């Protein structure tokens, strides 16, 4: 246990370092790339040099780079009053706080669906190996990883909003988001198709991964021992083979979930008109609204790095060899 704790402290230390590096990287991408001038973006097209200089001064863009970086981080993390470049007066942190529940609603719901479907499909494929169902299930997996997420969303919109909207899908509300606290029924109804769309993209990967793991676990010595003890096949599958096979699945889930909460669901959010973190980042990127980008990207990196660290610690807890790596 002490080793795990030591490992955890070390891991979180390096996670902090990675987050610092990411904030510097984003800052450099937007402020130190030659030829990119945030002031020109803010001032608009054809601004005269005097206006440009004024904009530069009022946004603090005439100060040296390290000072600007530190100032921005101070406003973001300590004073928590960082303001958008584009909509002056609108603060970054409340925007992120407002967008977070939308993204969480989308990602958690989709995760429940894809994990359930992935576990069922993966286990079914492994036990039915060699039968017709196995390649069929795996085909669903390939389709899932091959579909462009945004296109699938558009097609779903087309079917539910137009083609079959007058018959089968008349109950589907127009794209958008309704808060959970406001109306749980409408919340679920608005999110149903975004959930299914996002889940379809992931269920296949998990099924494929789990199938491989279960098949290799079923040929392990401990499964043979369990059989020799006379346990039922079902108990062997669920209690022995499946349990070990879940380790890589859980670790992959940690990474995917972190990335999605951090904004990787951007395409799904844009297509279904959900005002989540991904949409916020995307809108900010279109306007080069650097403070908002900085806020959302650091927020994203926080979730991804946290998920990475948790997964590594989970591994260390489950597999003693990883502690010394």
């Amino acid at each position, binding site marked *: 246990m002490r080793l795990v704790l030591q490992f955890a402290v070390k891991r979180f230390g*390096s996670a902090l*370092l*990675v*987050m610092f*590096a*990411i904030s510097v*990287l*984003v800052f450099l*991408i*937007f402020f130190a*790339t*030659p*030829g*990119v001038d945030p002031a020109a973006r803010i001032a608009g097209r054809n601004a005269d040099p005097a206006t440009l200089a004024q904009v530069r001064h009022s946004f603090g863009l005439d100060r040296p780079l390290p000072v600007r970086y530190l100032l921005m981080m101070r406003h973001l993390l300590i004073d928590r009053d960082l303001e958008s470049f584009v909509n002056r007066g609108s603060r970054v942190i409340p925007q992120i706080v407002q967008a977070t529940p939308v993204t969480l609603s989308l990602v958690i719901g989709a995760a429940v669906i894809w994990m359930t479907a992935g576990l069922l499909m993966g286990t079914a494929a492994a036990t039915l190996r060699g039968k017709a169902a196995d390649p069929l299930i795996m085909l669903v997996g*390939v*389709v899932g*990883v*091959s*579909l*462009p*997420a*945004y*296109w*699938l969303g*558009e*097609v779903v*919109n*087309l079917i539910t*909003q*137009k*083609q079959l909207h007058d018959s089968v899908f008349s109950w589907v509300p127009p794209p958008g988001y309704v808060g959970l606290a406001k109306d749980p029924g409408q919340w679920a109804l608005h999110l149903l198709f975004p959930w299914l769309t996002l889940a379809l993209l992931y269920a296949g*990967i998990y099924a*494929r*991964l789990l199938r*491989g793991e279960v098949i290799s676990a079923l040929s392990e010595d401990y499964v043979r021992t369990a059989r020799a003890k006379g346990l039922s096949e079902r108990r062997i599958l669920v209690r022995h083979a499946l349990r070990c096979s879940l380790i*890589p699945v859980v670790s*992959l889930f940690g*990474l*995917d979930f972190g*990335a999605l909460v*951090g*904004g*990787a669901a*951007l*395409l799904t959010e*844009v297509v279904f008109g959900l005002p989540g973190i991904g949409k916020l*980042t*995307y809108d900010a*990127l*279109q306007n*080069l609204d650097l403070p908002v*980008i900085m806020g959302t*990207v650091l927020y*994203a*990196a926080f979730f*991804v*790095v946290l998920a*990475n660290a948790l997964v590594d610690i989970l591994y260390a807890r489950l597999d003693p060899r990883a502690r010394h790596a």
Partner: protein
Amino acid sequence: MTATLPRLREARRSPGPWRTAAGDLLHNRAALAAAVVLLVVVVASLCAPLYAAHIAHTDPFQSHVSGTTVVDGKTVPVLTPSSTGLGLGVTPIGPTWDPAHYFLGADNQGRDVMARLLYGGRTSLFIGFTAALISCAVGTVVGVVAGYAGGAVDAVISRVLDVIWAFPVYLLAICLSVVLLTNGLRLGPLTVDAGSLWLPVAIIAAIYVPYIARPLRGQVLVLRNKEFIQAAIGSGAPVPRILRREVLPNVLPTALVFVPLMTALAMLTESALSFLSVGVQPPDASWGTIIEDGLGLLYTRPTVTIAPGLLIALTTAALNVLGDGVRDALDPGARLRGGV
């Protein structure tokens, strides 16, 4: 050395790993079918200028706002003013299923969708394949150097990879695209114009380097302690020679396995960036930009959106199936990020 061996010995030699793998692949029916599908898509895309010039008789990069075409022997306008809503939009002609006259219909600028799809395929395939090749090549070099050098070099490379890895790939790609699309890329002697196709290639290649470099670094770490490498070091072989003759041949199968899988990933990324209008820039077309063009027509002329999406799905699915086949033949244990 082999050339001096007696002829008899030559005859008994095992076919070698590459030939065995090729044999395995040729017996994999799913992979073969996927290869055929890919071949068809590639050849069709390469024939885009022929189709545009000799079959459709149209220039898919020129708008034909007031053009006309012939359907069932009648001359009809390519674009008709929209009758719904405010009447401001236009409704382009739908699929005619006649290759000479707007086979899949027109987009909202009156351009032939089928011809644009073929041209878009050239762009999408080019970006996907080049980005994947560059990513795999750079990733292999970085992974091998980090794994073999160890120490400070490895620490620095690994931390840099960690940082890119921790960045959700789409966010990083969009950040880079937004910045670079304004002025292009100037990196020492390397200059890429803002509208150039090499810009998305460079961005996509860069963001996926850790996907390749990380697993290969792990492999090299293990290889480094193997007896044959120790023997090569002990016999005084120079480092470049060890890397080239001992290490590289052992990691090359894994790197090759990643090429089709990465191509699929790169194509999906390109299409997503283009869809968000930070990828391929007009006048160039890619499957992603055509989907974006079709968005405004989604409810009236869905073909413009559906057809390129189906082509992306078909191509990436074929690449994934082929990639699985190559993996089974060359290196069954190879895993990209996320175990796929």
